[in-house]
């Protein structure tokens, strides 16, 4: 396992796209923080990068990588290796290298310019979103044999989590404006990792606005240690469940 894992990491880190991704993140984060007068505006831009760019890149890159290495996977399968081991090492290789790219490109810069709990929260959420969308990409790749379909599926998934889901939630909020649906909204937000990450960061960023009545209900949940732990637990589940599904499917898959 160790050898395959090392090979995957070395392969991805040498990959021009990952280097490009790291550099773009670095450039964006540095310029965002040094151009704005206050760090809070920079943080806002970083928030958008983390919520939009990171999931997109992780999804597309991981999906394409899985398809491109299908011959390599077949080669590995001809060896006396467990399918479990191969899939695990591919996953760990991907999340290590993409996580590293995020941390070097954005995480360190955030921590340098905003050495606070908020900065830490942004970093943790960025890393978790990297893991989550890599796992989802693996699932998308293993579900469809056709490369175009697989990439299409991952783009649709990104669109759904980043935009469409929020649209549906907003629609629901207006439809049921007369009902006390605050607690229900907390549950709904657990169904989208991007929303969950956004709310966790929001709790640190807009603390004054959230002390209002409705905000207080969210604050009572997401602002407490228990709530933060549950949220992070949910985000971890978002890594584990898609990966476990993909692993199960890969084991049974007829290549």
């Amino acid at each position, binding site marked *: 396992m160790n050898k395959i894992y090392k090979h995957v990491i070395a392969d991805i880190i040498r990959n021009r796209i990952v280097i490009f991704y790291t550099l773009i993140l670095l450039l964006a984060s540095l310029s965002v923080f040094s151009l704005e007068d206050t760090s*809070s505006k920079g943080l806002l831009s970083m928030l958008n990068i983390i919520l939009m760019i990171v999931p997109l890149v992780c999804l597309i890159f991981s999906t394409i990588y899985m398809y491109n290495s299908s011959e390599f996977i077949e080669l590995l399968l001809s060896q006396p290796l467990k399918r479990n081991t191969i899939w695990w090492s591919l996953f760990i290789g991907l999340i290590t290298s993409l996580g590293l790219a995020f941390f070097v490109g954005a995480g360190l810069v955030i921590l340098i310019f905003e050495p606070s709990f908020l900065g830490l929260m942004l970093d943790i959420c960025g890393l978790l979103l990297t893991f989550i969308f890599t796992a989802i990409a693996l699932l998308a790749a293993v579900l469809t044999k056709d490369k175009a379909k697989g990439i299409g599926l991952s783009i649709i998934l990104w669109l759904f989590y980043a*935009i469409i889901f929020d649209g549906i939630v*907003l629609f629901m909020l207006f439809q049921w404006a007369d009902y006390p649906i605050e607690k229900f909204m907390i549950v709904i937000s657990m169904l989208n990792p991007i929303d969950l990450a956004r709310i966790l960061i929001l709790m640190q960023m807009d603390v004054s606005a959230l*002390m209002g009545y409705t*905000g207080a209900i*969210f604050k009572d949940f997401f602002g407490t240690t228990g709530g933060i732990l549950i949220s992070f637990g949910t985000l971890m589940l978002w890594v584990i469940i898609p990966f476990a599904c993909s692993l199960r499917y890969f084991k049974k898959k007829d290549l």
Partner: protein
Amino acid sequence: MIALKTYLILFILFALSVPYTQANTWYVGKNERFKSLASAIQQAQAGDRILVKPGIYHEHNLIIDKALTIQGIGLPILDGEGKYEVLSIKASQVTIQGFHIRNSGISSLKDLAGIKVYDSQYVQIINNLITHSFFGVYIQYGKHCTIKNNRIIAYGKEEQQSGNGIHCWNSSNLQIQNNVITGHRDGIYFEFVTHSIIKNNRSFRNLRYGLHFMFSNNDTYISNVFTNNGAGVAVMFSNHVNMFYNTFHQNWGDASYGILLKEISDGIIQGNRFEKNTTGIYLEGVSRVKMNRNTFSNNGWGLKIQASCQDMTIHHNNFMNNTFDVSTNGTLVLNNFDGNYWDKYDGYDLNRDHIGDIPFRPVSLFSIILEKNPTTLIMFRSFISALMDKTEKLIPSLTPEQLKDQFPLIKPVKL
């Protein structure tokens, strides 16, 4: 003729010397002639001075009905035993200085206080420590009174069981300076008080308002700090109230405001700092108030200005890091927002005159949506809300078209 002049001069000299010749100093203490303050007050004449040695004095309700200067040495304690009003001042030109006054009674019927001034002028209350009292200092029908350097501390839990720190009713020309007030219902309460100055006070962790104004005209408050009060500061039904260089900090909660302005006219709000409040200023029915050179930073809402406000001029203020700079509840705008610095402004300045070339609309669509449907807060900072805000900036439909800064500043106002 010369004789008459001499008599006159002698008479004037005599007349002038009367108060001085009779001014005595009396001592109160364990080893002094007077064991209790009450007996000393009974003995003393108007204009006398009473010095009180350290100790605990249980005087029940002390009534001061002569113009005396009563001074504590080493913070002697006057204890109201939780039953009495400690000091009742019913004469003009009384000075109370250097006492620790504690445990006044609690009564909603009589409004018991640590020190209560009835219908008097030129009373001075200086350097006292007032603890565990229902009302701290209470002035009714007072004129030209000074309340200075006092520390007024209570540990109230409920509004009903707690009075105000400094309560002034139907008074004028008061000076309230350098006091520290905490744990009361309202820190400072003004009702029908005119021509007064509130300066350099610190009012924090009070149950309701740090400062509460009702029907009080022509007053000025300067350089006060209001922190962490249940509902911030409220100024209602008054005119010509000026507010300079105060700090409003961390007033958190749904109905909590840095300042709540209701039915106010003709005031000046200048040089104040609003930091980390849920709402910096909430304005309702406010007219002809000038707001200059204030700083709003890290608030949930900088200004919540209702459509009932008119003829306000809001110039040269800095709005920085607020979640929402301005929100409103209608489309009618009768106020002027020109020439402020907004950190959310993303226009350009081609002719380099430090004024942005395109107007800035401080009201975002999302703040309007939030006003109607507060639960949507959970969608804040999502891509879809940003998209809606951008669209609204290009084609205003829901946000008031007239609410805009025609000359937004490129750089913050230096204060």
